[in-house]
């Protein structure tokens, strides 16, 4: 099976095949023969041909993969080559930004309202969690189209806060 891995701004061709009790995975021109087993409810042990091994946790949301090694985490996107082609066309028309809460917390201040023009870096609101205030900045320039929260409201991780168009 062929895939394209996207990370660090590059598209890397990948090929995966079953091989004996394990797999062969080719990344660009490097082929690894690997063995993968579960190690409890969250971790997996991945072993390469030379016996080197990694205890890792894998999380996935759609095509977005997160592989955590304990002291470092790798984020990457895996798509099949067709999807990639389709995506390229869509990317031409830039969309807006939906800002979501990166942690559960409480909105203690709102700096913007619908219709406000914001620059990249404009403070949008302050989210408080664990005795600390965290300023949420606009990731791009645009106009505030929706404000999903009000001051004093508690939000869950991932909750929509503000949409920018």
């Amino acid at each position, binding site marked *: 099976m062929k895939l394209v891995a996207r990370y660090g701004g590059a598209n890397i061709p990948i090929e995966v095949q079953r091989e004996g009790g394990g797999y062969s995975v080719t990344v660009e021109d490097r082929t690894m023969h690997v063995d993968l087993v579960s190690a409890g409810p969250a971790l997996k042990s991945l072993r390469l041909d030379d016996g080197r091994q990694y205890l890792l946790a894998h999380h996935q949301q759609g095509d977005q993969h997160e592989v955590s090694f304990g002291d470092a985490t790798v984020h990457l996107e*895996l798509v099949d080559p067709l999807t990639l082609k389709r995506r390229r066309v869509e990317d031409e028309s830039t969309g807006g930004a939906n800002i979501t809460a990166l942690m559960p917390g409480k909105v203690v201040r709102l700096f913007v309202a619908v219709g406000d023009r914001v620059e990249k870096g404009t403070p949008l609101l302050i989210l408080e969690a664990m005795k600390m205030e965290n300023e949420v900045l606009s990731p791009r320039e645009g106009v505030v189209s929706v404000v999903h929260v009000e001051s004093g409201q508690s939000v869950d991780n991932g909750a929509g806060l503000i949409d920018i168009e």
Partner: protein
Amino acid sequence: MKVLIANRGEIAVRVIRACRELGFPTVAVHSEADRAALHVLLADQSVEIGPAPSSKSYLRIDAILEAARKTGAEAVHPGYGFLAENAEFAQACIDAGLLFVGPSPDSIRAMGSKTESRQRMIAAGVPVVPGLSEAVSSVDEIEAFAAEVGFPVMIKASAGGGGKGLRLVERKEDLRNAFDRVRSEAKSFFGDDAVYAEKFITSPRHIEVQILGDQHGNLIHLGERECTLQRRHQKVVEESPSPVVDETMRERLGATAVQAGRAVNYYSAGTIEFLMGADGAFYFLEMNTRLQVEHPVTEMVTGVDLVKEQLRIAQGGELQLSQDQVRFSGHSIECRIYAEDSSRNFAPSPGLIRYLNLPQGPGVRNENGVYQGYTVPIHYDPMLSKLVVHAGSREEAILRMKRALGEYRVEGIETTVPFHSFIMDHPDFRAGNFDTGFIERILPSLNESLAQGTASLDAAVAAAAIRAFEQYQNVQRPQTESSAWRRAGRMEALGRGNR
């Protein structure tokens, strides 16, 4: 003796463990948000005392005393933080006929005020950071002061705060100019041009001494703790002994700390915090009239269980050790594990701990406040647990800590574990060469280091690609042969099902 613990998190768990080893039944109190917190689960009894905000639960003296009454508790351990240094609370416990596991309300009060404690320390002959105790009207007075204590000095607005209205002066020639500037800033910022001066301690270390006393007048010290590594005035890593304190210095620090404790008739466990200059001169900063977060490093090198001692002392027991019997052995380090994302400027990271693996093995001690499946609430301090190691030497302790941090796994929320690994690897930390500005100075290189870790990009790609491949195979041939991913799924299903 039934003991109510007026606290939460790892320190409440610590106290429950000590009580259990002494055969004392325990009562946990908790807010509505904390019914499933570890300290509640481990106690023999528990009582809900109010809504999530601390001001409506853990800080409610009346609700805590009512919980003690209802459960028949005979003693109250306040932990640290919350009501631990509240003299009114200590008094209220005593008035309610409960043993307060801590010092007398008078000691708490005396050390609770910056100005009163400074006066009492000066009176007791304990060195404090030299400073003019009153505002001055002319630069000559500051010049005379600087001539006495030496440069550099800091000129400060009496009404100042927030880093405004102060100026560091290194040389006599610059005094007048600085004096005028601070006065004018003081006038414009605070509407009050009163200024004073303090000696400025260059490249200071934060060194504290553990003292322990009983109600019969015995008071000893248990050596120092090196607490210089701080981020935003929050301690990050502590150790004992300090790499810059030798036996002679330890005796001087210890004797001074005992002198400070005696000045307020101290009993129970307490800590005298000192600021130490690069020249080894040290100055009283403040006293914490309670158990300290970092007390375990002292326990590891002395073998004294401070919480058990507190409980015995509260019951009127005598100290089990004289100063001569205190032995220091090996080296201990503590890392505070916070629910913060080191890679995103230490943003809080509360939420569900989906998976937790604590390090184990020789010389490793976990003071854990959380467990797998626990949801870290947004309402409280982000400290999850403390990881403590003990080994024969500082070098071995650092390598042991590094090994233990490597075994630490938390999935679901971010923690400061990678940050601690970074510190353990830092050559200046290894050399014992740091001051209170160290953490802020090394932060810029942290993100770079985090990006590397032991991670193999190829290994990550392989794991993700195999997962994608298996998902594809499942769609194509739902009943294909067994795979690691599905075996994992089955194992979890088994784990979940009833048997």
